[in-house]
């Protein structure tokens, strides 16, 4: 137990603010937003394969978007940026969601095979739909809130595969342009929620480093409101 709680370095009291930066689809938008907010991101943009990029005021720590809430909740990172999809899926993580950054816009949707009535058919006949997804909790909540029963099947890789070869009746996934769905002969059946990048902070850092967090938040708001 002690070890889990101790997930914070003693250095975090002072020193630069540690900001968790998402790698992957949100990285480019995040770096642009940080640049516009006056945070130097040149090192992250370089060829380096390092994970931590120390700065005078702010140290950037790069990681998978889905790890951002974990690091921020524990205080290992003081603040971070990640997608709303990640926050929705990990809604029990206690992080403060402070700002909608507006970029990285995509939709969480329920999709099925084109012209295939299996989704509706499953509901009618069995009262239960099988859904493959990387977001089982979002999917369950969506079906529950619309009064339908669902069996979620969590997959890690290409979700589109599942309905094509009969693992599931449909999928719940994040869609940016819709091209992947199109290429796999799938179509959007229901929109669940729109997701964008969000600025989040650790609860204790939000109190004890209020000035720095508020300052960065104001600059990010300015930078992304254009």
């Amino acid at each position: 137990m002690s070890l889990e709680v101790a997930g914070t370095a003693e250095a975090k009291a002072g020193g630069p603010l540690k900001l968790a930066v998402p790698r992957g689809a949100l990285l480019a938008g995040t770096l642009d937003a940080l640049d516009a907010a006056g945070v130097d991101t040149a090192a992250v943009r370089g060829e380096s394969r390092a994970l931590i990029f120390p700065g005078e005021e702010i140290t950037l720590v790069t990681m998978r978007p889905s790890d951002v809430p974990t690091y921020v909740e524990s205080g290992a990172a003081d603040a971070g940026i990640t997608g709303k999809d990640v926050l929705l899926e990990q809604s029990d993580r206690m992080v403060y969601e402070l700002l909608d950054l507006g970029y990285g816009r995509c939709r969480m949707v329920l999709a099925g095979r084109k012209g295939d009535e299996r989704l509706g058919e499953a509901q009618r006949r069995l009262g239960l739909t099988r859904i493959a997804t990387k977001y089982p909790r979002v999917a369950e909540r969506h079906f529950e809130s619309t009064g339908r029963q669902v069996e979620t099947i969590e997959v890690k890789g290409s979700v589109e595969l599942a309905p094509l070869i009969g693992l599931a009746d449909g999928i719940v996934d994040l869609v940016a342009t819709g091209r992947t769905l199109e290429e796999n002969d799938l179509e959007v059946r229901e929109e669940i929620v729109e997701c964008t990048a969000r600025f989040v902070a650790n609860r204790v850092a939000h109190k004890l480093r209020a000035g720095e967090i508020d300052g960065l938040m104001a600059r990010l708001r300015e930078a992304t409101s254009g």
Partner: protein
Amino acid sequence: MIHPIPPGTRDILPDEMRELRRLHVALIEVFEARGYGEVATPAIEYDEVLARGDGRAAGSAYRFFDERGDLLVLRSDMTVPIARLVASRFPEPEQPLRFCYLANAYRAVRPQRGQMREFAQAGVELIGAPAPQGTVEVIEVLEAALDAAGLDRAVIGLGDADLFRQLLTELAVEGESRSAILERLETHDLVGVEAELRRAGIGDAQVETCVTLSQLRGGREVLERARALGSEAVERAIARLEQTFGELQARGAADRVQLDLGLLRHLGYYSGAILEVYDPALGHVLGGGGRYDGLLKRFGVDLPAAGFALYMERVHVAQMEESRRGKPA
């Protein structure tokens, strides 16, 4: 052979136990020295008795039937059992009652994230002393406890549980949107707060007031900034906070207190002042408390009350981090 124990529980071995014991003794000494007598109550209680205190707080994961078919529950904190104790044993106290405790409590949390399902709490309850004096006394005891634990960098957040409740009433936000907004304020989901306020049909200026208010934290200046937002509910909360904070300042006890208008605690029984404790060495809240002037009434004794509880495992971890920091590497 490996024999498992339930998730969220743990064994404590002698090295850690020795340190924990020293911490326990130091805290109980601080409490006793200030007139808070230690009490113990059963870990299991009748579900219907604890549920009087707070449906949500009593929402422990662990309920079971005894041999007579009565529904029992493992306590999820000590505040409700002590309210029960006071109502039964001291229904008409002539003086304020001061109790302290060191006890295990049980909650249905997802373990492995700095939270255990069985955890030790140390704290005090001051019953029969109204705001602001009672609140000030409790904060002073808390400061002494943090000093005794060696957490001289720890900060106490002081907020007002009624601020947003009254503000939403003033804005005539009721029913589902009211609870949705309070829930988002509690988890500090500012994006969600704004969306819910707009959904409730609140005008831009008021939305801005709520969002700004929830972000105001710092020294006395935040009260002026809140006052500038101009609302009766805010004004009333500020008057309460000003009284408490002014008294703390007069007694030289305000240095480590951070006024925080965005502070909300999830336990439903709080009213008026609420407290949270932070240390820079730890990303989790060390403890909390506040006033719960309506709680005793639910047990049939109408007395004002305040108190706090510290999570001992977290205090211990923070204590180790702080002492490591103090030493030259």
